[in-house]
């Protein structure tokens, strides 16, 4: 078994339950599910028993033991959506995709899941595709939404040049693209995240050119400050278990479109970053 399957952040013999979750989150972000052999390797390297790891992996809905599709469809079947026709929408999606809730299409395009409330009852019946909310969905609209999802709901076209490669990234949790088409840094749409440090909370734009450290932000961050970065769509913190190789501040992971993870150092001024395109690691 190749040793690089498990994130480098796994610290031998020193893993509490909380650290285990962040290790699993990182694996889930990398593979979009938790492969069995990787979990076995985590058990080996952390010295925890496989039973505990399996228990945690099956307990949380955020983890999946089977491969997930590129697009995640969540159909709300909460009370309000239920009375407004949520089950009919769910049935229509099921018949169009030929899968049941919790399953993934054989071509790995779609994963369907039902949720019990999305907190948007007034919009019901509501479905969420890759972080995009579709309110008042009728069965006739399902086909169009699926088509839209296939072509990319938040596609921001980045024209590439042979010599440089801008990255298109998305949130590891909600799968929503983090690209911001309304701004330009280094000639390309930048990555938009929310940052917080001290009692400040504001937006930050990062150049999408790999290796460029151009940023633009709402509040000037003092040098050496470690900031927390959040997804502007689902508001989840972008955090994995990895530490910066240069200054050991926490790394901020983002999913690269087409596969792989890019990690940037959360310390202002530190140029630590890492690109992992599934096997090949560039520093």
């Amino acid at each position: 078994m190749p040793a690089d399957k498990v994130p480098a952040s796994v610290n031998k013999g020193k893993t509490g339950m909380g650290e285990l979750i962040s290790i699993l989150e990182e694996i889930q972000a990398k593979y979009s599910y938790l492969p069995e052999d990787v979990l076995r390797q985590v058990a080996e390297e952390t010295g925890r028993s496989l039973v505990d790891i399996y228990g945690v992996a099956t307990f949380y809905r955020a983890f999946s033991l089977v491969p997930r599709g590129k697009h995640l469809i969540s159909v709300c079947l909460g009370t309000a959506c239920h009375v407004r026709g949520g089950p009919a929408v769910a049935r229509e999606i099921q018949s169009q995709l030929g899968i049941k809730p919790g399953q993934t299409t054989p071509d790995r395009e779609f994963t369907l899941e039902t949720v019990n409330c999305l907190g948007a009852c007034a919009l019901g019946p509501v479905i969420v595709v890759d972080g995009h909310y579709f309110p008042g969905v009728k069965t006739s609209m399902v086909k169009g939404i699926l088509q839209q999802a296939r072509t990319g709901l938040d596609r921001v076209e980045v024209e590439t040049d042979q010599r440089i490669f801008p990255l298109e990234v998305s949130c590891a949790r909600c799968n929503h693209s983090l690209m911001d088409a309304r701004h330009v840094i280094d000639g390309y749409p930048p990555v938009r995240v929310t940052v917080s440090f001290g009692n400040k909370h504001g937006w930050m734009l990062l150049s999408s050119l790999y290796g460029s450290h151009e940023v633009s932000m709402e509040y000037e961050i003092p040098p050496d400050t470690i900031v927390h970065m959040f997804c502007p769509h689902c508001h989840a913190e972008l955090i994995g278990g990895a530490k910066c190789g240069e200054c050991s501040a926490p790394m901020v992971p983002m999913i690269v479109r087409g596969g792989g993870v890019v990690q940037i150092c959360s310390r202002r001024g530190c140029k630590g970053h890492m690109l992992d395109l599934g096997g090949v690691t560039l520093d």
Partner: protein
Amino acid sequence: MITLFINSLRVSVEKGTTLLEAARFLGFPIPTLCHMDGLSPYGACRLCVVEIGEGPGARLVSSCTYPAEEGLKVRTASSRVVKARKLILELLLASCPQSKVIQDLASAHQVRQVRFRQEHEDCILCGLCVRMCEEQMMAKAIGFHGRGEKRGINTPFNAKSEVCRLCGGCIYVCPACSLRCTYTEPDKAICGGCANLTPPCVDKEKFDDMMCYMEPCVACEIKKD
């Protein structure tokens, strides 16, 4: 030493003693299902409920996990406790009607009918087998998985475990395993569960005669002639 009152009797116990141990020391019977000497208390079955406190502040707690407190007033068989215990037994019986252990407990507590739909589950999630495997057999081969109604017990990935030694300890302590051993026809009872984690009795067509690896079978206590 901590002094507390159990059914108005004063008793002094060591710090860290549970209410269940204190009550048993005095000789008050408290039924238990998920409790076993030698395994850590878990508080899953709630059969050992007792009432603590007085007046409107009185509440039910599981005595196997509640540590003795100074001056605590405990009632082990008040009408509220008995009522709660009977309801718990009724629910347990509804989920596992074939279990001899639960049947005996229900009968001893005058539970004469079950008002709930019978589920015929093969597990009541008491966690005895999980603790047995971890604490006595030092294996950690089985554990809980899932959450809510999908919660269950099995080996990781539901595959043969590398750390399992097929000791049969989990089947030995299982209060629901009489269901697996006798299937639904007790006279056709067979059991390989003690030495085999996938009991052949589940596949009963293949084993129409008694094919028990242990004699007498520690799990179903049926002697082979």
